[in-house]
């Protein structure tokens, strides 16, 4: 009798714990599942060469995703990252082209990105414009401004440091020129590792979750809500600035369309990573997984020679599917 009462809950507790585990790591499960399915159905997919290729392709959007995740965590959104990327990349390239040293070029590029972040923060937190409108404005305006500043010119990037970032290297065996990890890919992984720890361990990280989860309660706890939000927008523009440098490293040339539409791929990666758009819930490192899933699917479709217009359609529906899946998982957990 006692056993009859005690056994079923134990079993259900176990399945429940398993289900919670699965729900908490659904992004990882999806990534692994796709890896297996794609590996079985496309012969070259699982080669080291191709996986590294995916890493390289996703690195710019993944970098944008760091700041974007933080901005979404505080309950905001930043649509301007694609233009900030262009501003930072093109100004850096223009400085190099004009003969300035790499450090000056990087300071100008990243500094310009930070200025846009400051502008976004001021518009949203001090003037009180909604994040979507404010960053839509900077999305349109900043790209125009950047084009004016570089005279609408195409700029070749020939700086050795910038080139070095995109050189294919095999870690540990730098002398052999085999297809392998590039410095920029490693750099993105390192950035993510730092941010993952930072968001978990720092006062700023904790306060970001508090502000996103309940701004009223956070304010009543003495959390400087506006400051935290402004810092989030600054951080987002800063990572967009870094993404701009990585972008010109991988394309080696600045053209007017550089980074157009990348804000949407970035938001897609954040959402695929399970971060809640209303704020307060999510993990930076899961955005890396989200970006990996996104570019894995794109890569697979290229391997299978699916036309690009179909690729775009599929990407859109993948995003919707992921959101739906998350909804079901949450409903399953709450009932």
């Amino acid at each position: 009798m006692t056993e009859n009462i005690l056994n079923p809950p134990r079993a259900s507790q176990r399945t429940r714990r398993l289900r919670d585990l699965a729900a908490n790591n659904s992004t990882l499960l999806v990534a692994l599942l796709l890896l297996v399915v794609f590996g079985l159905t496309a012969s070259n997919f699982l080669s080291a060469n191709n996986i590294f290729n995916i890493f390289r392709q996703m690195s710019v959007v993944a970098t944008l995703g760091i700041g974007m995740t933080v901005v979404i965590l505080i309950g905001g959104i930043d649509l301007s990252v694609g233009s900030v990327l262009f501003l930072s990349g093109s100004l850096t390239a223009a400085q190099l082209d004009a003969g300035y040293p790499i450090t000056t070029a990087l300071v100008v590029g990243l500094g310009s990105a930070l200025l846009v972040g400051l502008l976004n923060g001021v518009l949203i937190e001090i003037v009180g414009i909604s994040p979507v409108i404010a960053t839509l404005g900077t999305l349109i305006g900043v790209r125009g401004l950047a084009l004016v500043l570089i005279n609408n010119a195409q700029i070749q990037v020939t700086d050795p440091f910038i080139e070095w970032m995109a050189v294919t290297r095999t870690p540990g065996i730098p002398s052999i020129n085999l297809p392998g990890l590039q410095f920029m890919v490693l750099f993105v992984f390192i950035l993510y590792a730092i941010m993952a720890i930072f968001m978990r361990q720092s006062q700023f990280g904790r306060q970001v979750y508090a502000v996103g989860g309940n701004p009223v309660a956070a304010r009543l706890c003495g959390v400087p809500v506006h400051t935290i939000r402004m810092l989030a927008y600054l951080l987002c523009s800063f990572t967009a600035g870094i993404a701009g440098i990585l972008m010109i490293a991988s394309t080696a040339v600045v053209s007017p369309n550089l980074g157009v539409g990348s804000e949407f791929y970035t938001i897609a990666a954040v959402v695929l990573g399970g971060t809640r758009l209303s704020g307060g819930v999510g993990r930076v490192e899961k955005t890396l997984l989200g970006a990996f899933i996104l570019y894995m699917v794109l890569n697979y479709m290229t391997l299978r020679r699916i036309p690009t217009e179909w690729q775009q359609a599929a990407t859109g529906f993948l995003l919707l599917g992921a959101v739906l899946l998350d909804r079901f998982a949450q409903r399953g957990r709450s009932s």
Partner: protein
Amino acid sequence: MSLTGMQAWQKACNLIIKGDSWESSFLTLFFGIEGFVVESAPPPLLDMQNISKRFGSVIALDQVNFAAQRGEIHALIGQNGAGKSTLMKILAGAYLPDSGSIHLDSIPVQFQHPRDALRQGIGIVYQDLSLVPKLGVAENIFLGREPGGLFIRQNEILERAKTILQRLGVGDIPVQVRVETLSLAQQQLVEIAKVLAYEPRLLVLDEPTAALAQEETDLLFGILRGLRAQEIAIVYISHRFKEILQHCDRATVLRNGQVIKTFPLAAVSEDELIELTIGEKIEHFFHTTQEPAPKQETSGAVLEVENLSIGRAVQNVSFALQRGEIVGITGLLGAGQNALARALFGVIPEVSGTIRVKGQPVLLTSPKQAIRLGIGLLTEHRKTEGLVLEMNVRENITLPSLRRFRRAALFNANRREAQAAQAYIGQLHIKAPSMNTKVNTLSGGNQQKVILAKWLLRDLDVLIFISPTQGVDVGAKAEIYEELRALAAAGKSILVVSEELIEILGISDRIIVMDRGRIGQIFARADATEEALTSVMQGIREVVS
């Protein structure tokens, strides 16, 4: 035929005949006769039998029997976590029971969805208001079932809303204004009107008076008595025993998912109710004895307020709070006590007058600054103002004190943070599976303790509580009172704002009664009685000897 025999027979019949209308009425008829023969009471309107529900390994309800008659106000009592909400959610169709049956008018029913329950005439007024603030009163009342086809007949909505409110005796609530402009009490009445518009046979009210002042509570019970006369069954959930004793007919006490007793309330005392609810005798629930608090000579006031005015809400208020003192502030809803408390925490910066903290005049402009000056605020809105629900117990407790756990300028020292949180979880007896449990899974009382822990860890000098025990069960209430007293004994100064006079009388060293924005009178504890406080609150300023 014995009652259990009858139930078994009824069950057997239900298995054969699945409740088509003529068959059911046949059953009713049949059992009506059976009932007559054994001279038992008429079948109740609502009959829930052997309801069990478990969540994982937790048994929320264990073979619960609950019945409500037509024309009675039936109180459902129990601590938070006793199973009241689960039982009502099953009744509302929000949860499916694991076992057991529900009969409505002797007809077996099964609710798959809250809509089903509503269609069957079960109206539930939830504790958290479900109104749309930006919509008008009438639109809210008819939300989702507006008369008319493609185009809504606006005039009809307004007319019908007016009629319903008039029938409730609150015809003075305008039907066209946005709900957000109404007071909380009025919103509560609109919520009730909304449910009544469905013309329910059974009305469930989940702590409807938590936000109401005495006058509005009386109004509400007037309305409920009217509904009772119309043969509507009313289930009333509340933590306020006085109210229950005064207005309800019968009560069912739940404890740990089981029904302890169902009984008429005519010859029951408040103490008996408390004992039944918490399952043990408690002598020290309140300061029943008027022992003078062991007060050290006051070493100057910690917080002084001089001629403080906040718009029209508070006018020329002056008082001082000493070290180790508990001062209660009470008054009718809207008399200014809440605005006063919030202003002292820097939430309302537009004030005139002088505030001094430890003798130094200060300008309180933000909560952050108030905290730095050693002032903390706990409000009655735990979920919206007190907690970050998606964060866990530990993170909520340490949120205002993060600076203390910083290491190397940027990183929190996790182990020290965990130890600090754990210490307060132990000290305040916070019941949570672990400190990494999300706070939104805790009961109201435990959530309140988490908020208290958060300020205790911050080590402040002045703690301001607004309705500290609202929606908190009896056991947790006693613990919170005990903790307040311990804090005062440890030298903290405490300001308690509450409309519950018993609470104020039980806990305060001095009592400030507010009346329409001004201080009506300040009582020493020995001079304060419920009658005296009430008369000042109502604006009848008698001199109390």
